């Protein structure tokens, strides 16, 4: 394992396997018959090093293993194999030290809050159980509420808060003990565009840049990771399949390989045929205008030389091209290239 003063989070060969019961409708089970079990390796021999002060994005589809990793790092799940250390403390053997080093947000925003108490009372409780000293507690609560822009709503009852406010309060709760490391599991899930952006900017500018916190930020929103993270790891089936800066990941897809085409009267069968063409690495189709029969296709091609063969396909199938442009590759294109699928698939 690497020296821990350089790295805030280190995992070595980390593995977590779940066993889940399968209940297919066709398999009639009674109280006495055993159900079939399925073993899922949620985190698979994962090696990861996150530097101190780094804003590290962990990107992956639902079920990729992101939340399991966060739960292992915050001591909620014991690993089956391998080791993980947070702030230099082993997550299996030094749980209290780990807990004192982290602030966490889980993917459900309102989790753990008491709906009939005010935001302030909720934070007062969490400040106490997170060892925020009693004499400076009130000041600290108001500080974090101010930081997340919730000072004005401190004494309103939690159940009256909007989704964005609940998320902000969750962030304030994670900041209460002023931990050096923050584990943020999908902190903007379910938020509107403006609230999401505010929270992202706060995490990047205030927590990462100004306060120098180490942030592990999991998300399945590719652009989020691309906008704020220093480095991004792409996780698929419990393993890291890529780890680099957002720019470096984007550059894995060459300019010209991504095309955006608007076509007219293309059938579903033709779209599926196009998907099967060797030159097309990935294809996302959306109906742009049902009345006029316009469909928008976003494709990643094998290479720039594939373009003539693509045009040949449209010509032979008698598909009219309304608009065509070569796009700058995005992190999503890199993601699709690496995982072989879109993030929401």
């Amino acid at each position, binding site marked *: 394992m690497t020296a821990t003063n350089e790295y805030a989070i280190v995992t070595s060969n980390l593995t*977590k396997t779940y066993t889940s019961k399968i209940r297919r409708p066709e398999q009639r089970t009674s109280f006495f018959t055993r159900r079939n079990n399925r073993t899922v390796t949620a985190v698979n021999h994962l090696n990861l090093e996150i530097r101190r002060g780094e804003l590290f994005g962990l990107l992956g589809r639902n079920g990729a293993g992101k939340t399991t990793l966060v739960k292992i790092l915050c*001591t*909620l799940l014991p690993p089956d194999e391998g080791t993980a250390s947070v702030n230099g403390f082993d997550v299996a053997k030094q749980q*209290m030290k780990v807990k004192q080093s982290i602030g966490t947000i889980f993917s459900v925003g309102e989790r753990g*809050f008491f709906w009939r108490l005010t935001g302030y*009372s909720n934070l007062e409780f969490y400040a106490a*159980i997170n060892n925020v000293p009693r004499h400076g507690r009130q000041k600290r609560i108001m500080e974090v509420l101010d930081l997340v822009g919730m000072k004005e709503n401190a004494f309103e009852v939690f159940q009256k808060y909007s989704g964005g406010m609940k998320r902000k309060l969750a962030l304030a709760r994670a900041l209460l003990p002023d931990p050096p490391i923050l584990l943020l599991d999908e902190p903007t899930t379910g938020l509107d565009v403006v609230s999401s952006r505010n929270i992202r900017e706060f995490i990047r500018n205030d927590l990462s840049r100004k306060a120098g916190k180490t942030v592990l930020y999991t998300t399945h929103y590719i652009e989020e990771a691309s906008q704020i993270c220093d480095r991004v790891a792409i996780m698929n089936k419990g393993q890291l399949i890529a780890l680099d800066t957002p720019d470096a990941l984007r550059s894995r897809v060459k300019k010209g390989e991504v095309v955006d085409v608007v076509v007219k009267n293309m059938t579903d069968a033709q779209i599926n045929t196009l998907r099967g063409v060797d030159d097309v690495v990935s294809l996302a189709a959306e109906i742009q205008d049902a009345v006029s029969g316009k469909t928008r296709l976003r494709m990643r091609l094998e290479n720039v030389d594939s373009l003539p063969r693509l045009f040949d396909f449209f010509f032979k199938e008698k598909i009219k091209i309304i608009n065509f442009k070569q796009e700058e590759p995005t992190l999503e294109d890199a993601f699709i290239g690496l995982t072989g699928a879109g993030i929401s698939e």
Partner: protein
Amino acid sequence: MTLLQELDKIYFFMKRDILSFSTYKTNILLSILSALFGALSYAFLGANAKMQVLETYHTDLTTYLIIGLAFNTYLSQSLTLVQRTINPWSLEEVLVSPTGLVTFIVGSSLWGFIWSTGVIAIYLAVGIFAFGVVLSVNIIGTVLVVALGIATFIGFSMIGAGILILTKQGDPVTTVITIATNLFGNVLFPPQVMPEALRVISYFVPQYYFFTTIREVLTGSSLQAILPDLLILIAMCAIILPLGYLAYSWCLRTAKKNGTLSWF
């Protein structure tokens, strides 16, 4: 981690519960009314019925019923206490904080006991002021017996909560203990009124020793007088409480290992 810090946490667990509880005003009123009417109805029953066998307990039926009802509140509170701390939404948040299991359990249960004490006061007040119940409280004995009863039932509660964490759908322990309390616990009728075969079961349940000794110490008996029953209660507590803690810790660890902690 200092003791002061842990006491501070316990205080804030309690404050959280008081604040939440105080928002359910109708529920508070109904709880008080149900304690009041419960005490009144059983006291009427006691005042107008006879149960010869109560001579064994040196008391009349009204006093017998009032004490049984009042202190059954404590046991019911203790029995469901740990289960009530398993709020799937807050359990993970508390477990990722640097708070130990003991602080968590004690903190989460304190307000419930304070409220139960209030309810007991209502029962006793109705008995004393409306039906002339006379108590001669052996304070040390009462505190000791109540502490032993609560500790034993917290042991049961931890076993039940552990099973609940694993099964997610009710635990058989609470049901069995509640039935055992009502039937064999010496709460509303003494086991002597039951057939011999059933009466024997009473001697194997801690509730019997709790209710027998609490009645004795509340009606003036010395510790020496209740020593045999008290020793059995102490022995049962010494087995059930640590067993409960071990069972709860094991179930919690297993649920963490399986990743099913918040699956409810």
